[in-house]
């Protein structure tokens, strides 16, 4: 691997890691806000320890999301200085707006929420968590505005070899943004719903505070089902949009080497042989790809070789084929994980109607294990999106190889040093976070287990003052 390879590895690893925590933050903020709304409306005090329980898990997760986000803000300058120079005019703006509109709001009000129990009124406290939920969503909107430009550049003109913004409105109405943003946000709601379902299931299986965890189970099941249906619906729109905007990514995601017939089958699974450029052991659903792509019964989908030939004509000689196997498998992973979540959420909601879910032990066990699904789906979704866009960093405008920092300032050794450092730091954080997630899940709602001072001499701290 060379300097470029390490730079890409560093970006990929740190970004996927960051995105293990972000969707849970976005979604859990909403779920806690819903629970607290019920609490304030009903005045049922049972909700308060439950909300504080989810709040503790939220904060353990939030801390890692925030600090790894710091690296995200600066690493375009670190490893991707030439990219930053090329698109800074356009890409920097949504990042700055994100900080001003969203980061301040979420960071400030999560402090108010966490430290504000009993210090501010219930309604104000509720407002704080809704502001956090709104802030995390707005944050998603702006960073995806930036990312959408990389997928589908709009609202720019080329001046002296740099892309310059000439329409902020065009950035905000980018068609890519309006499929990518709802898909990502709904995926975050779905992810957090499964986080809540899995942990609620864990508690129900062990008969811990059953009545309380039934409450969070209900909210998570309903939000999960709504999000699952919508995320798949929007994801389908997104795939249809790819046909027009990034045909190469779609072809790679389908491992479709040659343009299909007007009745394109959808490959449910196959072993992609990149060298021989063909699939083996393929399981195909007739006509399905045509339907997915065009929402009608006939229409052929362009293959990798044909798009490659077209791009050579358009952009000059070169290899425009992204790594096919990762794109294909990532897409399958996302789809299967998403479908499983839909099925589980639907069954959970079905059980809700009969209020029997606390007795279905086998299903609760399945739900515990389903915690892995959102993480798989989220990582796979981004791998498909970003790997499938290669060799471009800004689609059709800038190749990834031309976006990396000059080796004169950032050597391969520099990147290896920093990658190693971040790997160690991130690994240590992951271990600590998982340890605390586990610990606080097991502690559950029992307030006497809150953190206390370790002094043997000091008097007992009061709890909840």
């Amino acid at each position: 691997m060379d300097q470029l390879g390490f730079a890409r590895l560093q970006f990929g690893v740190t970004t996927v890691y960051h995105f293990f925590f972000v969707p849970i933050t976005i979604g859990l903020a909403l779920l806690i806000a819903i629970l607290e709304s019920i609490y304030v409306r009903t005045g049922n005090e049972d909700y308060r320890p439950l909300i504080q329980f989810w709040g503790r898990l939220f904060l353990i997760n939030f801390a890692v999301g925030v600090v790894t986000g710091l690296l995200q803000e600066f690493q375009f300058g670190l490893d991707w200085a030439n990219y930053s120079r090329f698109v800074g005019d356009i890409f920097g703006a949504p990042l700055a707006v994100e900080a001003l509109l969203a980061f301040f709001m979420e960071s400030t009000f999560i402090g108010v929420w966490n430290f504000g129990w009993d210090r501010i009124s219930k309604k104000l406290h509720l407002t704080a968590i809704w502001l956090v939920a709104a802030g995390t969503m707005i944050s998603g909107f702006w960073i995806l505005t930036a990312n959408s430009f990389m997928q589908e550049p709009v609202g720019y003109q080329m001046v002296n070899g740099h892309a310059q913004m000439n329409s902020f409105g065009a950035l905000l109405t980018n068609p890519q943004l309006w499929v990518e943003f709802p898909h990502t946000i709904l995926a975050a709601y779905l992810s957090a719903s499964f986080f809540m379902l899995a942990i609620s299931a864990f508690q129900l299986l062990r008969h811990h505070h059953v009545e309380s965890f039934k409450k969070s189970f209900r909210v998570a099941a309903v939000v999960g089902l709504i999000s699952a249906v919508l995320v798949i619906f929007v994801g389908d729109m997104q795939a249809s949009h790819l046909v027009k905007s990034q045909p190469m990514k779609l072809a790679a995601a389908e491992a479709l080497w040659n343009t299909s017939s007007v009745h394109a089958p959808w490959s449910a699974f196959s072993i992609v042989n990149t060298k021989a450029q063909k699939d083996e052991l393929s399981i195909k659903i007739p006509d399905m790809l045509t339907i997915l792509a065009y929402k009608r019964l006939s229409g052929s989908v362009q293959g990798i070789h044909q798009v490659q030939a077209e791009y050579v004509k358009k952009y000059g000689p070169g290899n425009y084929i992204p790594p096919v196997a990762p794109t294909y498998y990532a897409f399958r992973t996302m789809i299967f994980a998403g479908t499983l979540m839909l099925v589980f959420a639907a069954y959970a909601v079905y059980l809700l109607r009969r209020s029997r879910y606390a007795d279905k032990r086998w299903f609760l066990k399945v739900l515990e294990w389903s915690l892995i699904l959102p993480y798989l789906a989220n990582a796979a979704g981004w791998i498909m999106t970003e790997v499938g866009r290669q060799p471009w960093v800004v689609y059709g405008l800038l190749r990834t190889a031309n976006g990396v920092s000059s080796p004169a300032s950032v050597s391969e050794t520099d990147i290896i040093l920093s990658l190693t450092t971040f790997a160690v730091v991130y690994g240590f954080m992951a271990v600590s976070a998982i340890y605390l997630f586990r610990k606080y899940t097991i502690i559950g709602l029992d307030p006497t287990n809150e953190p206390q001072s370790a002094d043997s001499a000091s008097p007992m701290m009061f709890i909840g003052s």
Partner: protein
Amino acid sequence: MLPTIWFILIGVLFTGYFILEGFDYGVGMLYSFISHNDTERRMALNTIGPLWSGNEVWLVTAGGALFAAFPFWYATLFSGFYLALVLMLVGLIFRGVAIEYRSKDQSPAWRKRWDIIMTVGSFLPALLWGVAFANFLEGVPINAQMNDIGGFFSLLRPYTVWGGLLSLTLFLAQGATFLTLKTAGPLRDSALRVAKPLLNAAIVLSAVFVLWTMAMPALGHRDWYLVVSLLGWVSLTAARMVVSQKQGTAFLLQSLMIALSTGAFFLGLFPHVMVSTLGAQYDLTVSSAAANPYTLHVMTIVALTMVPIVLAYQAWTYWVFRKRITPDQHLEY
């Protein structure tokens, strides 16, 4: 015109960041050393508990604004100061997690580990920002492709290290004064005891730094730089004089000093953003590093609308959490 406005805005964002996060870093570096037991360590952390995260967004915003308004400055700075920035980010990452995780487990080994991480994590940015700013003005080897080719150790020279020591000491002193305001009992007494020598050191370090900066060839607006810096130095000296009796006033005076020094520095840097040691033609300036007028125009509207709103609600949270932290109350961290 617009690039100049954005240069000022970047200055304002960094000023906000240094004032607000300065005392956070100070508290983070000091609390392990001046507390007598675990309760006191927790009290110290809880003084910044509800505030630090919002404070840190000032840096994130400064970074975003730098990217949006001066993409060439952003690109050259962060690729050129690569390992230094990586170190700073590691510090910031560590301290954010440390403050959240430290008290979540009773085990003394766990707490000790996070205390060390918090201390180091607060030390790194407090030191490195001074080093970085001093490097903007003294210059780094920026070539014709706008790449800083110096490498990590070229960033560490007497003047830049002095700048680092200055920011470090200012933030330490600021943190100590903050603790005297927000805590009670023995912890408060210890904080006051360390605040005084720290302020003494800062007074000396800043006086030398100002004189040293006056010798920098690239320094612009020399008279104004000197006047504003001296005002800052006077505020700092005044803070030292009142700190035993009036910690609130001392804290405000120290914040004023940080604001004036940052302001003076940006004034002295203008119209440069980064000086090149390879020839004045390679200097990055406000006009050569700026984004196009359209982007700046859009960003100006957003910033002028949002900054007052942010200031208003952040000020409100400081008011909500204005009370001292005492040992007998519920501690979140």
